[in-house]
């Protein structure tokens, strides 16, 4: 017999995310310096014991801004995932459960949406509703919906044909009850995996949008915006680029590992 395999992905993923969650919670009460306070005379300091990650061109403490930046990141990620999962499951579940020509139409629309590079849609949505943290999150949430809808749909189609559903149908259980009580709990795990991937992608997309100047706006600290602001200082003050860049990477990595970990876990169980 093989020894029990440690789920390293889950372990590391959880650890990384826990670390950032704690950082975020702490940042609500304490940051080493005021996040937005400007001290021009103190600008572009290299990392030191006073400023662990150095200071930016306005003399603001980069560590404090990164800590506050995790708030924005978690906020955007949560809103995106929430929108994606709720609407994705509703649309995909409906299409999968009802089937027929309605399913066909919905899936064609979703295909059309997915045939379209997401960033372009995001650019247009942001252009209409204006920039800002919440608008960015909503735009990205709309983008996350079709992918999750597909997953939900295939889950519903698979489960619909199973005996327990037809049994429930035959004894006249209300369709809504079947959907929420019977099918949904059974496609729970792929949805959780999809949600954590959506969270990771949302963080990256927010960074890209902010980099293009279309995402989170000042003075809200955003990791993506910090990266954009740092671009001109790349050669002279590399820490300004590296600190937010590495933070985003770790954060996204945490969510990817979490999703893989959950997937491994459920795969094992099903075996």
């Amino acid at each position, binding site marked *: 017999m093989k020894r029990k395999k440690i789920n390293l992905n889950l372990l590391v993923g959880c650890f990384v995310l826990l670390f950032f969650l704690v950082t975020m919670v702490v940042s609500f009460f304490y940051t080493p310096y005021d996040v937005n306070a400007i001290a021009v005379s103190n600008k572009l300091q290299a990392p030191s014991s006073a400023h662990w990650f150095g200071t930016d061109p306005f003399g603001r403490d980069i560590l404090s801004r990164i800590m506050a930046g995790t708030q924005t990141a978690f906020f955007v990620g949560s809103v995106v995932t929430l929108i994606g999962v709720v609407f994705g499951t509703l649309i995909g579940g409906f299409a999968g459960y009802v089937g027929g020509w309605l399913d066909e139409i919905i899936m064609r629309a979703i295909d059309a949406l997915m*045939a379209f590079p997401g960033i*372009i849609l995001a650019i247009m949505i942001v*252009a209409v509703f204006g920039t800002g943290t919440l608008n960015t999150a909503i735009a990205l949430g709309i983008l996350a919906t079709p992918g999750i809808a597909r997953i939900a749909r295939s889950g519903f189609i698979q489960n619909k044909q199973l005996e327990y559903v037809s049994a429930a149908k035959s004894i006249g259980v209300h369709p809504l009850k079947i959907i929420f009580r019977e099918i949904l709990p059974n496609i729970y795990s792929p949805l959780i995996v999809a949600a954590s991937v959506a969270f990771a992608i949302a963080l990256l997309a927010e960074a890209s949008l902010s980099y293009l100047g279309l995402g989170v706006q000042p003075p809200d600290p955003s990791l993506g915006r910090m990266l954009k602001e740092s671009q001109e200082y790349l050669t002279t003050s590399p820490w300004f680029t590296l600190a937010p*860049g590495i933070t985003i990477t770790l954060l*996204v*990595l945490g969510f*990817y590992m979490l999703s893989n970990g959950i997937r491994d876990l459920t795969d094992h169980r099903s075996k």
Partner: protein
Amino acid sequence: MTYVVRRFLLLVVTLIFISVITFLVFQILPGDPVRTMLGPDADEAQVETLKQQLGLDQPGHVQYLHLVEGFFQGDMGDSIRFSRPVTGLIMERLPITLSLAVISLIIVILVTIPLGIFSAKREKKWSDFFLSSFTQLGMAVPTFFVGMVLILFIGMSFQFFTTGGYVPWSESITGAIGSLILPALTIALPQIAISFRYVRNAILEQSKLDYVRTARGKGVSEAIVIYKHVLRNSLIPVVTVFGLILAEVIAGTIVVEQVFSLPGIGRLLITAVSYRDFPVVQGIVLYIALVVVVINFIVDILYAVLDPRIRLKS
């Protein structure tokens, strides 16, 4: 045959859908192309005259129908921002974006397939674990951050790489490669990570099947087992992934063109949106959708070629 007709109709419907959405979005967008171009010194008389001359004084739907009418005659209209035909503008930039996409895809394929085979062969060994973790990292890094780091550590140290700007192929082949390789690498990195996992898993699944065991049992050499049997039969999921990736690669060019100041389609699109240049946005959006749909179509055809059991049906 009916399949092809069906697909074609679907394509037309998709394009119409996207065109109408783009138009509606532009109806809501605040801002006026002429004023945005002229800036805060604009003269009222001048703005009015220019709008008349450009046909922008007409209601939105009239302008749109006019544009659609032109479409059927093969004319995508003129850019407001650049006062020249949209088709020409897109064609000028196509070589840049296309080279970028193709080079990235080549990098992805060249790296992924050998790496996937290598990793699959060493399933559950440390090297496999390291590769898997490494690719997760690759997916987690924001593309533009990779681009900036590449500029900082590689672009600045070697004369060969042009960082910021594009050298046309006609001018110098090495120059063109020098200006495209870093951005292409930037786009490729996260895609390598995604496709690597697919290739690895596909090969793993295949190599556990009976026929592979039989082949091994018969004493067929490992190389032949892998390359002749396993790889060929793993190609279907792999082709799917490369199809998906190409759409991502095209999207990736938008951000990367910005990081490396390459005058490609993505940059044109961003300029066009910010200047409310509807004909250009419409042209590019339809163009990208067309490319993505056609690629999906090719992927479907490839399925049938690779596996005769698959019939082309909806």
